[in-house]
């Protein structure tokens, strides 16, 4: 039923598909750090080669009872339930920004414990908690 040509094309295609899937997987693995939209406070603590002049994004949860709203400054603590980062920000925040909710802050690190944000994005989730954080939490609970 299957002619030689069909078999040839099929094998060619399947081999190239497998190779391309593997290649993409390897590329994604090696690029993982660039693809990540934000770092967690633990990533920052672990990282030795931090560039303080470069803009980065930090994500996590706004810690309970840490949000302080002053006249022209908002202070809060981003936590991944293991490490924390103090954030200072002046400007408007998205509607969904509040305590115990996911947040992504864009800005510059002053030092490993203090971050000045230029932009705040809310990371919403109907479970109240992003799975990344849940995973980190699980790991930390062990």
């Amino acid at each position, binding site marked *: 039923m299957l002619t030689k040509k069909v078999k040839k094309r099929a094998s060619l295609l399947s081999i190239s598909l497998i190779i391309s899937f593997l290649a993409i997987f390897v590329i994604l693995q090696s690029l*993982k750090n660039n693809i990540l*939209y934000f770092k967690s406070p633990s990533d920052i603590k672990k990282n030795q080669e931090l560039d303080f002049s470069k803009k980065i994004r930090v994500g996590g949860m706004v810690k309970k009872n840490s949000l302080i709203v002053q006249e022209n400054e908002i202070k809060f603590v981003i936590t991944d339930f293991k490490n924390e980062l103090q954030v200072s920000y002046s400007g408007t925040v998205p509607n969904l920004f509040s305590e115990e909710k996911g947040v992504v802050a864009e800005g510059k690190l002053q030092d490993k414990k203090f971050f000045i944000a230029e932009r705040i994005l809310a990371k*919403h989730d109907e479970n109240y908690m992003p799975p990344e954080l849940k995973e980190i939490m699980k790991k930390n609970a062990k």
Partner: protein
Amino acid sequence: MFGLLNNSNLFQWIEKLINFFNSIFFILLLVALSFALIISPPDYLQGDSVRIMYVHVPAAWIGLASYTCIAFLSILNFVFKIKNFSLVTKSIAPIGLLFTCIAIITGSLWGRPTWGTFWAWDARITSMLFLAFFYFLFIIINKFIKDDTKANKISSIVAIIGLVNIPIIKYSVDWFNTLHQPASIKITGTSTIHSSMLLPLFLMFLVLILYCALIFLMKYKTEIIKIKKKNLKR
């Protein structure tokens, strides 16, 4: 050749189906929209902006599903050289592009009030953009390469390459830190969307699928007519 022997039979069936879909489409649309816009409750956190979901999520599903269809038909077309499949893929592609664009645009409009930004270069959104790009490439190749067999071959290869992107889109929210929230409706396990919001979601999905079928059949009809005309010219 081209399965034209039964195409006249097929033609009548397509006409009947188009008429049938046309007759129920608007009624279903009204029902689904009233569920989505009026009856369903607003979200506890997002308020009424959650209603964007009823277009955004089905549109994204359709964008992914129709690309997967195109890619698998392209594989069959490439291996077994079944010419009719190229007509099918050509007819699916514009719908897929339309819905991928709708998903991206509604997502952008939804992102503004919820995340605080129209656009973020996170893994989900960027890979979705790639999907739209692959659709675009597929359509462009079929439009601008005059030689039919050559156009078929190149476009099916492009479609097959783009298949690699599909699992990346699906799992990007689990593999990487993204701004986009992970899937609420899972293939296994319970969904995290309340049932009162799930019903309008599935209704809207049904309606949009029906719309796709309608457009697909119309496009397929014109493709068959095109081929018939070509044969007459020879």
